[in-house]
């Protein structure tokens, strides 16, 4: 049974206002509850190649795997919980090997790599895998939480107590990552499983968004525009561009449908205001 109708997915990707290339790649597949986002790096167009390979391979292979192993996927929550992380890990490893080998064999692609963040929704859970500094956020009610921790030097300095989050936001050293797809023969994907609730909105993004738009503004946008996710995605990109757009900007929004999703607290406020 395809998962169509259980999720609303909207996305936007933009080169930003400084770069000539868009090295980000995104793919979504609502039927299998999959969203993949990658932020490539490397000279000339190698970054686009790396992120493109990662996203295309994972989207294609995951669909194939889920079609042939549907039993595993459609089983109980327990089975899904076992299968989903394994699928993410396997396909990230496969993409890593392919990019690494391409980079080894073709001089113009030497050193290319990419970040990766991917979500696979099943039952009432989501498995998230990430490598590098592309992020997953969750909007639940009016609270925004960052569910992934960057694999970046900056994050390590924050963890070490040497920088505050606010200082990190203004540091020149953003974008230095300590883990990437395609740089080494092997890479470890960090995987976590979270419960989902109807009304949740999940945001996958490249650092071009969260470096330019603060968490408060991301929260306000998702909270205000939850009734129109395509507009929310557009709006996030626009804010990043309005604030400078120094890097490529990509966002994928996944809204989990359900009865509770229909109305949130902000509506009451507006109704009261309009009627008062």
């Amino acid at each position, binding site marked *: 049974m395809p998962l169509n109708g259980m999720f609303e997915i909207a996305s936007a990707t933009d080169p930003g206002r*400084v*770069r000539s290339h868009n090295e980000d790649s995104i793919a979504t597949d609502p039927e299998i509850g999959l969203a993949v986002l990658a*932020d490539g*790096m490397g000279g000339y167009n190698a*970054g686009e190649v790396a992120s493109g390979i990662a996203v295309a391979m994972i989207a294609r292979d995951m669909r194939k795997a889920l079609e042939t192993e549907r039993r595993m996927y459609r089983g109980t929550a327990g089975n899904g919980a076992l299968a989903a992380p394994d699928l993410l890990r396997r396909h990230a490893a496969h993409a890593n090997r392919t990019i690494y080998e391409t980079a080894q064999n073709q001089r113009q692609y030497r050193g290319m*790599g990419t*970040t990766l963040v991917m979500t696979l929704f099943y039952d009432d859970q989501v498995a998230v895998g990430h490598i*590098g*500094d592309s992020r997953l956020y969750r909007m639940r009610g009016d609270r925004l939480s960052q569910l992934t921790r960057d694999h970046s*030097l900056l994050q*390590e*300095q924050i*963890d*070490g*107590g*040497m*920088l*505050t989050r*606010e*200082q990190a*936001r*203004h540091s*020149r*050293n*953003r*974008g*230095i*990552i*300590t*883990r*990437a797809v395609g*740089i080494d023969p092997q890479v470890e994907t960090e995987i976590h499983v979270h419960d989902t609730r109807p009304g949740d909105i999940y945001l996958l993004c490249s*650092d071009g968004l969260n*470096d330019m738009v603060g968490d408060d*503004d991301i929260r*306000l*946008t998702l909270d*205000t*525009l939850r*009734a*129109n996710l395509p*507009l929310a995605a557009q*709006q996030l990109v*626009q*804010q990043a561009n*309005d*604030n400078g757009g*120094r*890097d490529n900007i990509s966002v994928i929004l996944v809204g989990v449908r359900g009865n509770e999703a*229909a*109305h949130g607290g*902000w*509506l009451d406020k*507006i*109704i009261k*205001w*309009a*009627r*008062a």
Partner: protein
Amino acid sequence: MARLILSLEGATIREIPLDRERITIGRRPHNDVHIENLEVSGEHASVMTILNDSFLEDLGSTNGTYVNGNPIKKYILQNDDVIGIGKYQFRYISEAPEKTLTTVDEFEKTMVLQAPAVFTAPRKTMPAMGDTQSLAAASSFTAAARPAAAAPRPAQPRAVIQILSGTGAGRELELVKNLTTVGRPGVQVAVITHRPQGYFITHVEGVNYPIVNGRTLGAQAHALNDHDIVEISGVKMEFFFKHD
């Protein structure tokens, strides 16, 4: 070019240009910076320089590597940081070029630190700052870091919408947030966004689209001008700027 100034007990010994991707500091003769002192480990520390940034790493030394008095394992050097190795001090002078748009761009390109295993090692490789004293030292140290770049905004008149019809007539709402929704949820909602170029109205939900000055809008954002009349779900409102 960035450089380190090596000194011992206040007396400058020599200047070390960071003109290579990596220099090593240690007691063994093969190090780029060779210090013959028993407090210094054979391979004590390294400084890796990428573009205009230098990364200091302790190579598992016996007596540790310090920055401004705090022990570090790996660290992004900031201008004027003082590295302590044994009794020796290295002052880091970055002399980063004046930031132009292109250099900002270079800094912010995503880079991956390759090779050194330490960088890919699990988190928590930072030494724990256990006692309160070192925590206090750490916080005063971070407080001294480069101040956050403030984004000055030119003073703008306050934008307001005022309800003109219906039971709410006369009511004003100041548009203080970047995004403000107006309308009846589930029926018709529009959002007014505040951008550097001004204020814009965009349809969010409902079958009917907003009407501005008698003209029905499409799905695209529409720029609002002073004294525009907006109609949403039958309620008329005026958008205007308040000049104090």
